[in-house]
């Protein structure tokens, strides 16, 4: 049961985190097509069938048929996201999804010469900004 794609506007997405914007710019540089948050995957429903928890991967690469989720959360803070990702794989085994964890994000930034961003990830709690927390809360509420 894959929900219908929700329309997205890749020409002017409002990124929830600077790391997402940096990632999009890297993809653009290498000519890789991407869409930002094109689809929401319901994970839990209440007794009326209303979605009470959902997951929306950050990127979709159509040519690779691959969803990408980025996180800069410290491992001890990312338990909930890991659980959601496991649930997505259980409910939608036909989709390909890849998680870039905090350290992998740092390494990616280093690889592409974004040393300031890499140092920022390494040196802070790197929690997502308030805006994103609000977004997640909205997703959780269905």
């Amino acid at each position, binding site marked *: 049961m894959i929900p219908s794609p929700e329309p997205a506007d890749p020409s002017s997405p409002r990124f929830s985190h600077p790391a997402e914007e940096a990632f999009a710019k890297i993809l653009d540089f290498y000519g*890789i097509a991407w869409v930002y948050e094109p689809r929401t995957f319901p994970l839990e429903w209440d007794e009326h069938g209303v979605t009470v928890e959902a997951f929306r991967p950050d990127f979709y690469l159509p040519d690779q048929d691959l969803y990408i989720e980025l996180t800069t959360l410290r491992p001890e803070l990312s338990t909930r996201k890991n659980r959601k990702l496991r649930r997505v794989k259980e409910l939608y085994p036909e989709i390909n999804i890849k998680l870039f964890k905090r350290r992998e994000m740092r390494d*990616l930034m280093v690889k*592409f010469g974004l040393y300031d961003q890499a140092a920022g990830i390494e040196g802070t709690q790197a929690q997502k900004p308030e805006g994103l927390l609000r977004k997640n809360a909205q997703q959780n509420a269905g």
Partner: protein
Amino acid sequence: MPNKTLDNYGELAAGVREILISEEELQRRVHDIAGEISRDYAGRNPLLVGVLKGVLFFMADLLQALTIPAEIDFIAVSSYSPESRQQGVVRLVKDLEIPIDGRHVLFVEDVIDTGLTLNYILRNLRIRQPASLDVCVLFNKPNHRLIDIPLKYKGFDLPDRFVVGYGLDYRERYRNLPFIGLLKPEVFQSNKG
């Protein structure tokens, strides 16, 4: 003879926390790969193509270990950076000097992780109609892969860690370590490199 420890490398290894793949292991694997290539490409005079600069060490050792005639050439591509991004998309900054149409080309790469750069280069090379085009990579980071690329020869699968040595750098340092190592976390925290 036991493998060397970090202490054996002195100042060269300052900032390195741990040896992940020793000098001896690297050389053994490179010779194994060279043996496979020598068998597969016998009588085909392959052209080994590498992308500067990280592949220099691997290319040199691999070429010396081949037991068949082979040629080499190099290309260079613009790296992603905030500055290069202003100029648009990735591009060749040094092209091949040897024509590859009708040649058996083996693309030699030090490390593949996302596959973004390699994907661009292979697309570029395929247009030139080589007789064959395959990939030989020494270090594979499969967990970082965004673009699926078939690898004909592979040296090592690496864990999800930022590694240095044997051509792999951090801010242009550590390339000349003869082993693969992990850096201390404080190296990343210092923006002064």
